């Protein structure tokens, strides 16, 4: 369904481009022009938004997956509810990774003069690169955390149910959960390292 919609949109876009090109109106669909005219600020903003947004979605998936199961399993085995809060905390950590990345990105965001950039190509390149890096870092952290939250949630929900059935299993499943949680950490680390390359502002 999604793929069809996206494919359809791309197809329409290409068709318009082709008809313009062949109809003698020149290359109106110009990707280079498109990319050059997107401001690095937009990229930064998008990066921050993706990082925090996807992470929070991941965290919430994790929390409801786990939470629903803890509630249900806790009806017959009330002892599980305290122990299994740790799964909720793992999910919550995913959201915190996202917020760390977006905060780092926000501290790196600096103003730069557009006119100065037009004259100084190196400075322009640097600022554009920073923009893309932030988008990339945001995507890295965001997607990693989304998937991580999902994984932690699924494992956490299993852990809650397994704990209710047999208390011995809890510690073992906790290990699995820690590994799932590590996925988000990978994203965080890569995003942080990416962010260290960011250099924005008027200085070259």
């Amino acid at each position: 369904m999604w793929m069809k919609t996206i494919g359809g949109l791309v197809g329409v876009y290409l068709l318009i481009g082709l008809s313009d090109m062949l109809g003698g109106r020149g290359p109106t669909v110009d990707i280079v022009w498109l990319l050059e005219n997107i401001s690095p600020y937009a990229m930064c903003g998008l990066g921050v938004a993706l990082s925090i947004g996807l992470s929070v979605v991941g965290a919430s998936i994790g929390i409801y997956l786990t939470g629903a199961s803890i509630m249900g399993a806790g009806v017959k085995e009330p002892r599980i509810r305290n122990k299994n809060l740790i799964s909720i905390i793992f999910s919550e950590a995913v959201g915190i990774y996202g917020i760390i990345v977006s905060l780092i990105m926000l501290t790196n965001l600096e103003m730069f003069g557009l006119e100065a950039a037009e004259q100084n190509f190196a400075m322009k390149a640097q600022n554009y690169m920073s923009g893309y890096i932030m988008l990339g870092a945001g995507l890295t952290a965001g997607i990693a955390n989304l998937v991580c939250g999902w994984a932690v949630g699924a494992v956490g929900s299993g852990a809650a149910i397994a704990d209710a059935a047999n208390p011995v299993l809890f510690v073992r499943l906790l290990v699995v959960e820690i590994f799932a949680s590590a996925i988000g950490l990978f994203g965080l680390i890569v995003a942080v390292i990416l962010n260290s390359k960011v250099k924005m502002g008027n200085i070259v």
Partner: protein
Amino acid sequence: MGDTFFNIQHGYLEGIVRGIKSHLLGASEYANLSQCETLEDLRLSLQATDYAPVLTADIGNLDVRELEDRLRTHLVDEFNEVKRNSSEPLTTLLNYIQHGHMIDNVVMLLLGTLSGKPVAELVAKCHPLGRFPNMGTIGIATNSSELYEAVLIDTPLAPYFKECSITEEKLDELNIEVIRCVLYKSYIESFYDYCQGLGDTTAEIMAELLKLECDRRAMTISLNSLGTGLSKDIKESLLPARGHLHPYYLPELAKIDDVEQLKTIVEGLPEYKGIFDDGEENLEDKLIQKEVHMCIDSFLHQFHYGIFYAIFKLKQQEVTNLIWIAECITQKSRHKIETCIPHYP
């Protein structure tokens, strides 16, 4: 993907159902129960289980009937609790579970009204899982055509009646047991198709469980109809066409003349190898054993609707087991307890 959103609606219920499952009686409990000398002992042994609140000490004189009533009420309460909290598509699935019992009830009501018994009395004796709000209205009917209308309008079973084209005239002339089988066939086929429509793990698990149910019916019907006056065409129309035996073996099953032929056909399937090892008398016990195992196994997957079907199958079996134990105790044949009860882990 489907797994992710399962918990939004059904995570809570899944947790509850799994809780119920882990409190099912296990091998050690059954061993304890079969040591009981009297029903009072049985009651005390059950105090350590989920049934403690059901069998409180205020029952003056516990007999099998009372026990059965209480256990059944407990089961229905649990079912209703789950159903009240459920949302689609689980609600439909639970409705399907009820329809099975409803068929029994409606058939009984039909039979009773045709022979002129008061409906209120019959309604009281219906299986509580198969109750539906308009049950009383069936009894207002005075002749078979009114009865037919009443059944079509007031029961949720109308689609099954329609599908297997039971018409007014047929209601009069067909044997009630045959009508029940025809209805059940169309019910279980519709249930199977619905579960396949749900896709994912649910489809996979429910397919196996319902296939077993279909095959069980096919086998028992062809076995029990040996030596009765049922014609081959009617027989074939009674066998549910969704199981492992479908489509190649059903016409053959309808044609068999003795048990040996049935054995040859059924043993040919890998799923049912060795099912006749203890003779055909124990076929049903073996099938119950198999079903119990499959139901328990269905809990190995998470995020699917099959466990809701499985838990109520298991619960019903458990109630039946407990009543069996109680019967054995009251009839002083404790050594026979073990023979019927399936093995639990």
